[in-house]
């Protein structure tokens, strides 16, 4: 490689590092998380093995034989050090010592057997039946609600409880509290009705906002092009305001505008219309607000790009079309619009990408409401993985949503690059290395 190429690489390196850190690594991590069942419940580190009531129900649902379930729940009564210690604490050391001497290591199937053994204590009898019952209970050994820090420990416990070999893998799987690799997220995701709702919402969001952005941006650019310079720049500045406003402030103003004590309600109350939340009262209103909020921001960008593209058209070409007899509409249609082809394509593709992944305005305005009507895919990914009301953050499932979005985005970029005929846009370096 020549020295100039290294120099180019050196100049590029800050960008490469940023791309690596903020694009490649997150994408790779997303791909990684998407194939796990990580959630708040599993944690992100390894887990333990524990069987609880809900685990037992899951096993029952999975068709585990009732006998095995019984074995898990009541694995019998074992006279061991732990039981004796508990006995000593509750009933005194002498009783524990004597009972230990007689029965250590024995396993009783039923509590009654333990009680009988307790009755057999000669020097330190427990007199009350109720006490004996309580004492027998101390030796009950069940797998329920016991934490096993490692797999061998859990397997040993299963062995000890005489659980049939065939049932063990399923029990182990249910008992594990950590995350595991799984491809089930994808199937699960598409089995959810809400997923299709998110897809539909995203479609509505992108199509309507994009149309608004491009068409309104075009309208502004062309309209201001025909205005005297002073008026034109005033209008452009006004339409640029939403973009330079801090997003939170911008949304707060929209909320004030639409709240039940806000501008619209206040004005309409003068006409006898009952105040209501105009943003969230119906799905239609929610969508209208979302499209307008995003549209006004997006349109300003289209306006700037289109305006400069129009100004790049040589004035003699516009003069020519006028002396050729074209009126304003014909001039726009035949001369200006065809020459805006590339800027329009650029804005369309660029905005498609950013709209697919953007949810900040929706998050701030409706947060997906009312009733999930404006919950778009990206917002759903965010909600699932990072921020939801239930509090069980499903990192794995959320990452699956995000990964699918990345795939869709990549496919769309490829399609647009093809449309742009990207290879033809690449120019060889003018200075030979």
């Amino acid at each position, binding site marked *: 490689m020549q020295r100039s190429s290294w120099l180019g690489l050196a100049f590029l390196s800050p960008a490469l590092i940023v791309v690596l850190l903020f694009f490649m690594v997150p994408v790779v991590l997303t791909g990684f998380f998407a194939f796990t069942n990580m959630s708040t419940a599993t944690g992100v580190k390894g887990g333990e093995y524990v069987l609880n009531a809900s685990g037992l129900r899951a096993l029952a649902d999975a068709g585990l034989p009732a006998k095995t379930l019984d074995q898990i729940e009541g694995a019998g009564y074992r006279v061991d050090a732990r039981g004796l210690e508990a006995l000593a604490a509750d009933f005194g050391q002498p009783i524990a010592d004597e009972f230990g001497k007689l029965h250590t290591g024995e396993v009783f199937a039923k509590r009654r057997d333990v009680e009988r053994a307790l009755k057999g204590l000669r020097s330190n009898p427990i007199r009350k039946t109720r006490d004996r019952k309580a004492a027998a209970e101390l030796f009950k050994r069940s797998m329920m609600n016991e934490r096993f820090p490692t797999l061998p420990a859990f397997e040993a416990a299963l062995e000890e409880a005489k659980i049939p070999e065939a049932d063990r893998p399923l029990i182990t799987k249910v008992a594990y509290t950590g995350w595991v690799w799984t491809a089930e997220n994808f199937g699960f995701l598409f089995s959810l009705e809400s997923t299709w709702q998110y897809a539909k919402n995203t479609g509505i969001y992108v199509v309507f906002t994009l149309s608004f952005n491009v068409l309104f941006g075009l309208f502004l650019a062309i309209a201001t092009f025909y205005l005297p310079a002073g008026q034109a720049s005033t209008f452009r500045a006004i339409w640029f305001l939403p973009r330079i406003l801090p997003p939170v402030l911008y949304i707060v103003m929209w909320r004030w505008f639409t709240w039940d004590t806000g501008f619209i309600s206040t004005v309409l109350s003068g006409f006898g219309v009952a105040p209501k939340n105009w943003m969230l009262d119906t799905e239609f209103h929610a969508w209208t607000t979302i499209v307008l909020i995003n549209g006004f921001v997006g349109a300003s960008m289209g306006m700037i790009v289109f305006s400069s593209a129009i100004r790049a058209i*040589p004035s*003699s*070409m516009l*003069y*020519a*079309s*006028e*002396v*050729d*007899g*074209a*009126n304003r509409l*014909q001039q726009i249609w*035949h*001369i200006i619009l*065809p*020459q805006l*082809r590339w800027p329009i394509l650029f804005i369309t593709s660029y905005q498609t990408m950013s709209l697919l992944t953007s949810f900040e305005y929706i998050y701030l305005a409706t947060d997906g409401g009312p009733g999930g009507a404006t919950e778009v895919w990206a917002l759903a990914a965010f909600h699932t993985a990072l921020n939801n009301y239930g509090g069980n953050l499903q990192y794995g499932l959320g990452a699956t949503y995000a990964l699918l979005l990345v795939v869709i985005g990549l496919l769309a970029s490829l399609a647009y690059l093809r449309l742009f005929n990207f290879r033809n846009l690449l120019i060889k370096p003018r200075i030979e290395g």
Partner: protein
Amino acid sequence: MRISIENFTKAFGTTTVIKDMSLEINSGEMLALLGPSGCGKSTTLFAICGIHRMNSGRLLFGERDVTRISSQQRNVGVVFQNYALYPHMNVFDNIAFPLKVRRDTRADIERKVKDIADLVHIGELLHRKPAELSGGQQQRVALARALVREPDILLLDEPLANLDAKLRLEMRSEIRRIQQQTGITAVLVTHDQVEAMSMCDRIAIMDQGKIMQLSSPKEMYEDPSSDFVAGFLGNPPIAFLEGVAAEGGMRLANSEVTLPVPAAINLPDHGAAVRFGIRPEFFQPDNDLKIKGRISFVETQGREELYDVTLENGSVLRSIQSQGGSFKLGDNVNWGIAGDRILAFDAAGNRL
């Protein structure tokens, strides 16, 4: 169609470019607006086609007052300096554009575009994009587009400025041929005097927003009304001698030499400043009004040779002679001026 410009004034902001100009262009005539850059010739052209609105004055096409009529409705064809072809349309669509916006029928458009393309000899280029055409071809397309809807008037804004020398010669006669073939009234804006003289019936020479002289090329060359006009026309250009009116003619500045003045010229009072304009072809070795000097510059132009002769007082005369003279740089010569062809001007530059 006859064009009359009456008392035309045009200002851009506070700068008045053209003040109270009147001009009459006859039907079927090709007129050149000739002048240095910034003289207002293009402004006049754009006012005729309606791109610029007149601040005051009237514009008539024939009997029709078009002063307030938009350029779309004036039925004027314009060829712009950079041709202003529509880059996204092919040649056919470019030429068809004026017809298309007029909503002619498809068959009509096809026929007319074909006819006009044949007239300007680009019949086989119709499917190409402007970017795939040479300068001369683009020029022809622009001309075809301007002519296709049979305009009353054809306006040409420096149409040859972007062509190379050879193509310029070719297109010069080509445009003239087409103009004469169609019989259209045409206005040519140019800063090139050769173009103006070779293509046009009449020339309006402009300077600083005013028409200095309006006449046929020959008349303007031989009988200029001012030293500006005399200096603008002719290549190699006319040479001027400064002096004062004296007994028996003009005494050259800083010199004892006095040039006798032909009887046709009315000299002012003695002592008043005078300029003589002498064209290179009238300063030759065998003319009778001899004047001494030294050859200070020789330029071989092939068929002819151009000499600069520095006179004793430092003034320079030019001479253009047929190839074959044996004069060299630094030779002292005693050549003569054709006395009856001297153009004399007063201090203000007006012809005497």
